[in-house]
């Protein structure tokens, strides 16, 4: 205990903190030589008190408030919140709405997974992958703009419906844009899943066992890469997921490679879902015209790109929620790093922590502390550089 206290006194957190980026976290790695012996995760640097703010906003305003929780999953939170209110009222949004919401949710999954892929490439020293992934993410944002008018913060959800319709005349053009993503994804799949150097760098690295995944109640691709088969889209169908054909991607190995593979293959499933939704979309109203929210409580949950996103809302019949509890998937997935990183090499630390897919500023705030001297020996930049150098050594014949 006294040892730990000492560590706390000598560590200087590396900053500066960037409040513009999502989810700043501070990982303190404890190392012995090249091996990670322990990790301490500190969060809360950018806690904005959104649950508290929600209590003074009207039910309609909260939709836009929760959209600002995250810039990457800016559809997931309003979607889950609207489902919570609809659960509270015991109603269902019109059918056409479910299809439109599903299309947006899956486009969001594609752009989020591509973003992860690019950054994972960067951490490994594959900057070409980084450039490609972000290049092919652009057309996805163009599709968003075509449908919603915005490249980010789509503002599509409202209580009991969506704010904009997808115009039938636009559908062929959108389908064409979506189909153009497939060859790009094929290239990625080949470049990453079949690359021997990536196998050497990622296979068997940062393993999260199925037992640990269940103990930490891991979610989304992190859980599914460890054989823990949980996907809210299938388990508790919402939107149009029960009306289209698609597969849940599950891998058994639990290492970083499995997590990458799950995400890459999920993009194909998302494309399948979007295609079917756009073709099958029924005609009809897009709004249930909710005027007021009665007293009661409701829970809404969806499968965000990172896993189950759950909202609990209680109303007393007034204009604002009495209580609004929000749980984003990273809240459950980030602590799994403790199970997957201990015993691993320092050079692999950045990619293991990144494999959880927290928002990325996290790894910027990483420090390595030598157990014997209690001094910070490496910064986040050093760690990324070490990860890249390890790959570079494998490239040489």
């Amino acid at each position, binding site marked *: 205990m006294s040892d730990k206290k000492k560590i706390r006194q000598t560590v200087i957190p590396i900053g500066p903190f960037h409040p513009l980026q999502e989810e700043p976290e501070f990982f303190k790695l404890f190392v012995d030589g090249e091996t990670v012996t322990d990790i301490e995760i500190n*969060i*809360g640097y950018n*806690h904005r*008190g959104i*649950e*508290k703010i929600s209590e003074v906003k009207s039910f309609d305003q909260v939709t836009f408030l929760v959209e600002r929780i995250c810039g990457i999953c800016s559809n997931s939170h309003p979607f889950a919140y609207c489902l919570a209110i609809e*659960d509270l009222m*015991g109603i269902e949004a019109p059918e056409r709405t479910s299809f439109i919401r599903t299309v947006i949710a899956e486009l969001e999954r594609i752009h989020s997974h591509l973003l992860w892929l690019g950054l994972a490439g960067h951490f490994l020293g594959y900057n070409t992958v980084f450039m490609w992934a972000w290049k092919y993410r652009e057309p996805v944002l163009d599709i968003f703009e075509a449908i919603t008018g915005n490249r980010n913060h789509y503002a599509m959800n409202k209580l009991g419906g969506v704010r904009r319709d997808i115009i039938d005349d636009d559908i062929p053009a959108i389908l064409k844009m979506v189909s153009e993503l497939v060859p790009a994804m094929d290239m990625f799949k080949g470049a990453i899943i079949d690359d021997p150097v990536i196998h050497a760098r990622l296979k068997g690295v940062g393993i999260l066992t199925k037992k640990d995944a*269940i*103990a*930490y*109640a891991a979610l989304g691709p992190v859980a599914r890469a460890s054989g823990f088969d*949980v996907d809210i889209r299938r*388990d*508790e*169908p919402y939107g149009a997921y029960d009306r289209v054909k698609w597969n849940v991607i599950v891998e058994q190995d639990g290492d970083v490679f499995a997590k990458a593979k799950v995400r890459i293959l999920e993009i194909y499933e998302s494309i399948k879902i979007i295609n079917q939704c756009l073709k099958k979309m029924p005609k009809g109203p897009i709004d249930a015209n909710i005027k007021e929210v009665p007293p009661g*409580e*409701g*829970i809404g*949950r969806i499968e965000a790109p990172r896993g*189950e996103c*759950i909202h*609990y809302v*209680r109303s007393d019949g007034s204009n604002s929620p*009495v*209580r609004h*509890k929000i*749980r984003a998937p990273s*809240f*459950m997935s980030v*602590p799994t790093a*403790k199970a997957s990183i201990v015993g691993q090499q320092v050079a692999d630390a950045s990619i293991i922590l990144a494999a959880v897919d927290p928002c990325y500023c996290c790894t910027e705030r990483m420090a390595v502390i030598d157990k014997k001297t209690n001094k910070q020996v490496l910064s986040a930049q050093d760690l990324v550089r070490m990860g890249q150098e390890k790959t570079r050594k494998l490239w040489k014949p």
Partner: protein
Amino acid sequence: MAKQLMFQIKDKLGDVVFQLEDKSAKRTFASIHKADLRQVAGVLHKDFKARFSIASGIDNVKNFELLYHFSFDDLGKIISIRTFVEKDDPVIDSLVPVIGPAAEWIEREIHELLGISFKGHPNLKRLLLADEWPEGKYPLRRDFKNE
């Protein structure tokens, strides 16, 4: 299948659940006394393989209310365990010894935002609030004033 499971759960828990409300096919709320929390959570998590999704804490002015949301992924259903904690004795058993590390962060969060203590939690320090935040001020309590 969902009905059968509900019968089994009711059977297993007996009179521990004093109020059971099936809000819809997907949502059930079960009220229990706080002394029975570990037993109920253990039954749901170990015997019925429920996944702990999250807990919500609410300040009802006259008391605190805690909801533990357990997800039954095979059935597409959430069973929320509802329990109450008195204002003058804001202490409840921690679930970490029963369901593992999944409950660690949320109990730390409820502890600092609502001021409820979790007995048996391995590391009940602050999660989100800054180190400079004054002791004894709980932002999610109704009597909290933003100065």
